[in-house]
């Protein structure tokens, strides 16, 4: 448990450093999702960093693709590729694109255009179910992202096909680029919407808490006839004092002084 917290802290530090070096990127929504990613990659998913295309691996799709720095830091931490790559995020000729692409080991689906990753994850789960494969598909959505129409097309399809081998997370940090999600285009109540679409819905009061996430995943696993979604209340910019709950930190890189301050917060 302490171990996961230490790993999450290191991942947060790598997120801040890589976005700082790139002087561009999305720190807020990367930092809010760290516990979800850490728990999946360190405790839940059957994956092999040395064999990223392993046939029966569990799949992960970062549908909120702008949180790529969080995924990259997690994958590097797991050993999918050398950590030095994080220093070249968003640079010409480098591997790590602004949003996930299939050129990065461990990335199961290119994402970035919101909503599409969710739809592709439904396709993956459908493929697994059709072939009787035991692996599971996990997908992470943003709360602003669920304003996209394709999300609800895919939500309908996942329950229509009874994809209990699919688990979604909504990173409900309450902020999108233009402001609070409830002000821009109110998606609430998120849980009731998914319920109405036939999903097994689990509310997670603190999506930055490993125990709560773990307990929610246990509930998800107990459901064998529907896809499950964990609606996770999180803090945008979590762990960096001046970024927490600040909409301005959705999509800009910190300057060197800010990086230094952030790393002190994450010491």
């Amino acid at each position: 448990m302490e171990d996961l917290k230490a790993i999450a802290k290191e991942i947060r530090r790598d997120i801040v450093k890589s976005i700082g070096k790139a002087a561009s990127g999305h720190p807020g929504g990367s930092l809010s999702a760290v516990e979800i990613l850490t728990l999946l990659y360190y405790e839940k998913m059957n994956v092999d960093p040395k064999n990223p295309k392993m046939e029966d691996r569990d799949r992960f799709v970062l549908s909120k693709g702008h949180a790529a720095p969080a995924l990259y830091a997690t994958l590097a931490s797991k050993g999918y590729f050398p950590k030095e790559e994080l220093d070249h995020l968003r640079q010409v000729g480098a591997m790590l694109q602004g949003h996930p692409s299939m050129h990065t080991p461990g990335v199961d689906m290119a994402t970035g255009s919101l909503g599409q990753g969710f739809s592709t994850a439904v396709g993956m789960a459908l493929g697994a179910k059709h072939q009787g494969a035991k692996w599971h598909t996990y997908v992470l959505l943003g709360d602003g992202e669920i304003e996209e129409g394709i999300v609800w097309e895919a939500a309908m399809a996942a329950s229509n096909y009874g994809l209990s081998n699919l688990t979604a997370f909504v990173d409900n940090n309450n902020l999108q680029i233009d402001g609070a999600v409830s002000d821009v285009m109110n998606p609430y109540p998120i849980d009731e919407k998914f319920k109405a679409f036939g999903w097994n819905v689990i509310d997670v009061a603190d999506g930055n808490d490993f125990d709560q996430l773990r307990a929610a995943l246990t509930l998800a696993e107990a459901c064998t006839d529907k896809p499950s979604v964990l609606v996770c209340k999180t803090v945008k910019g979590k762990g960096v004092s001046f970024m927490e709950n600040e909409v301005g930190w959705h999509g800009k890189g910190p300057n060197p002084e800010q990086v230094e301050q952030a790393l002190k917060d994450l010491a």
Partner: protein
Amino acid sequence: MEKIATREAYGKYLVELGKKNPKIVVFDGDLSGATKTSYFRAEFPDRHFNAGIAEADLMGMAAGISTTGLIPFASTFAIFGAGRAFEIIRNSICYSNLNVNICCTHAGLSVGEDGGSHQSIEDIALMRVLPNMHVFVPADAVETRKMIDAALNIDGPCYIRLCRLATNVVLPEDYEFVPGKAVELKKGSDVTIMAIGLMVERALEAAETLEKEGISARVLNMGSIKPIDKAAIEAAAKETGAIVTAEEHSVIGGLAGAVCETLAETTACPVEKVGVNDVFGQSGKALEVLEHYGLTAEHIAEAAKKAISRK
């Protein structure tokens, strides 16, 4: 001679392929009866997935399932597939070079009665600009089957453009289709008519008419729009000195666009474009609509003379 629509040939051939290859699965968007994937559904109900009326998700699911070892064929009308779901095809299929076979029916004006909202005259242009994408337009039932075979041999995205209207079979059963190769259907030295889809038959008719008037017209089937046969285009320009393109598509961005882009890099040559002239279609019987917009053998023959006059 029995007429058969390319959508019909597609639907029937899918069943044959499905028997041979258990990895083939089909996605449709509540149009199975019209796209003819209903034949596949009847034979393999558990391998036919209906996305409902949700083309974006149809393409997204096809992208996802293609990463699980299955080979998806994704079908809907061209206007909804290439049009509405364009950006899903771009970002979730082409960007990752996924092995998805997009077979869209009801392309072009020959949709007929459903009218301008349903007549896709821009799908070739939309699909052609996408990196990694292959774009094939069969002239008839025979070529439909050959192009599907070719698509199955390509580990990457393919777009096959199919039509609603039943048309004559113009190619022999032993016809060979090779991606990136134009096929010369008639030799000629005064002008080259480059055609795709149901305009191939009209191009052959036009060439016969021209022959009677002493004009020797070469006819090329340009069914492989991407990759396109640059050598055949260049040779046509050099050897015949005049070109006509004929397509059931906007004159912007489709076959005419591809041919002119090639010529701009190689050989100066007059080109006359037979196609839809930057307008939307309208309701009517398919053949009457085609005639209304000048997609006829007569119009191709006139265009050929005009191209020759510009030499």
